[in-house]
């Protein structure tokens, strides 16, 4: 019950949420483009892609209790699906030659591998970005959860799957670009990636997708399904005794998280201009979970904020202190996770509570300040 209370903190009624959501949307869609230069705005677009993964992890881990340490797998599936389409588009625009993506030429591949052929179609590629990760997750999830593999076992297993995926990607250089991955993208559905104005448009598109994904995830969490999911996390066997099938409940959340990671991957490719195994392995996959832990795993908005904050802090710190920032990063994780288990969401809640009690003690008629906190 305590966890349920966490989900719906005091004063987060429908109205309050709408206000906050509108504020956040305005900040992302109006304020940020006005304040940030092209470079920083593109970075923010990148963080928003990561935040989409974080929302998915918040769903699977925060609500469903599945520590997904291998989201790189799904991020990669989505990213490669989109990257393959974009490479093919560019290759088709080449004036001459075999019209193959650049890396195939230097890997000695002469004709387009069959796996690539369907990705010529934009519709197929877009669908694949989300559906392939979801299907893979559904199959893996069904196999794993049916056997009631959970907790640390599931965590390490999902990690091993991401590791295996990376090894396969690297080994098939002619098919995937190997360690280099897919790079050197020039256009994304008509947007020229070297054109700053087109990049701003791309940012707005990413921001809208992020807000939409967030709303969907939030609806899911607040629905009856969301309650069963939390129940599975807290007492799986009781849920089973009540006649639900926890496997199906968990698979749905896992596949949902996978779909979000895939979507994030698909957007990441045009935003950053690269998709490579280095983004998908064990370390990046753990980092994804760290963002969520830092932000606050049980609150979706904070999970997303965690991704943005870590992304920002990492860029900023590594610019200012290139040789010392690993300490800072490590220490930040340790301090937050060990001493603030609810993440920044918990810190913010606690701060608000203190401020409120301080204010009410001093002057009971002054209401607590409304701004600052966004939790939904």
């Amino acid at each position: 019950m305590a966890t349920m209370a966490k989900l719906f903190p005091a004063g987060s009624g429908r109205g309050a949420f709408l206000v906050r959501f509108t504020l956040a949307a305005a900040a992302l869609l109006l304020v940020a483009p006005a304040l940030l230069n092209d470079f920083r705005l593109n970075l923010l677009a990148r963080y928003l892609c990561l935040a989409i993964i974080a929302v998915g992890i918040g769903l699977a881990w925060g609500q469903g209790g599945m520590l997904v340490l291998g989201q790189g797998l799904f991020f990669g599936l989505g990213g490669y699906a989109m990257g393959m389409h974009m490479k093919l588009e560019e290759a088709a625009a080449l004036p001459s030659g075999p019209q193959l993506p650049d890396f195939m030429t230097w890997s000695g591949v002469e004709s387009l591998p069959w796996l690539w052929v369907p990705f010529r179609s934009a519709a197929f590629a877009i669908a694949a970005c989300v559906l392939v990760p979801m299907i893979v997750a559904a199959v893996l999830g069904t196999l794993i959860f049916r056997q009631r593999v959970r907790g640390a076992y599931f965590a390490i297993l999902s990690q091993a799957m991401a590791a295996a995926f990376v090894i396969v990607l690297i080994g098939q250089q002619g098919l995937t670009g190997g360690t280099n991955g897919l790079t050197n993208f020039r256009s994304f559905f008509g947007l020229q990636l070297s054109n700053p104005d087109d990049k701003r448009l791309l940012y707005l598109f990413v921001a809208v997708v992020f807000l939409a994904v967030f709303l969907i995830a939030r609806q899911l969490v607040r629905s009856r399904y969301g309650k069963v999911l939390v129940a599975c996390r807290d007492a799986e066997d009781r849920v089973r005794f009540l006649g639900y099938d926890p496997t199906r409940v968990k698979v749905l959340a896992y596949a949902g998280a996978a779909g979000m990671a895939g979507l994030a991957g698909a957007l990441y490719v045009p935003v950053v201009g690269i998709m490579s195994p280095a983004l998908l392995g064990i370390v990046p996959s753990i980092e994804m979970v760290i963002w969520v832990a830092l932000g606050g795993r049980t609150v979706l908005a904070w999970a997303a904020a965690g991704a943005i904050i870590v992304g920002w802090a990492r860029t900023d710190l590594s610019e200012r202190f290139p040789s010392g920032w690993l300490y800072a990063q490590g220490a930040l994780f340790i301090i937050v996770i060990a001493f603030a288990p609810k993440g920044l969401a918990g810190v913010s809640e606690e701060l608000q509570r203190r401020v409120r009690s301080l204010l009410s003690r001093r002057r009971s008629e002054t209401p607590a300040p409304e701004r600052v906190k966004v939790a939904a």
Partner: protein
Amino acid sequence: MEVFLSQLFIGLSVASMLLLVALGLTFTFGQMNVINMAHGEFVMAGAYTTYVLQTSVFGTGAVTLAFGLSLPLAFLVGGVLGLILEFTLIRRLHGRPLDTLLVTWGVSLMLQQLARDIFGAPNVQVKAPSFLEGGITVAGVSMPYTRLFIIGLVVVALLAIWFYLSKLPAGRRMRAVVQNRDLAAASGVRTPHVDRLTFFIGSGLAGVAGVAVTLLGSIGPTLGTNYIIDAFLVVIVGGLGQLRGAIVAAIALGLANAYLEYWTDASLAKAAVFALIVVFLQFRPQGLVVTRRRGLA
């Protein structure tokens, strides 16, 4: 036939290295349900201990002496690092295994950077003692002394652990805690003490593994990351906290790696082993050796 035998030896030697790293994890993971991602960095600390002893303390004149001394000292260094970690962080995270994973990962990041600042980013070099140079050939299989030494080291470590767990009171208390923490606590076992001791021994074993690593691999700040995931897989396949399971799992993984790599190549072999593990866990989701327990958790 010769190939079969030589791969058998290589498989066993891979297994011994895996087991040496995984032994400590079996302890901490099994007893405290702590996924210690910094375990690999304790291995690194053990390797650097050997380096420091050889270069700064004894000089290159007494390689054998330095190497011999580095075994107990690396155990101590790894153990003390583990104690510090247990005392400052893990103790506070009791019952939150997934958080421990993330926190210890942060610790491992910091330890890597620390090693980089103290010893520099480039790999350092440790000379193998002269008695480990060369090897013997039996039935067409050449066996380097270094690999034989590591196999021997594992056997000794296993014997010591067996003796500790089954003959000494402290070891029996440890087993009691593994099997049923609450009941052990209720019977008067001071579980926090046992935990600390477990962590000391587990991390110490990582230090010893570090000494073995100097014989085969590179010694640099990122040494630990090369071994940690494979070691975790050994623990998972073996079953939580099961010494027997870990031994069988390490040998199985080592042999699978050696033979698969012989038939295909290193990348494919590694991916295939991962796939095999996923399939295996379909049939034995709790690993090879399962502690039977009544109850739902």
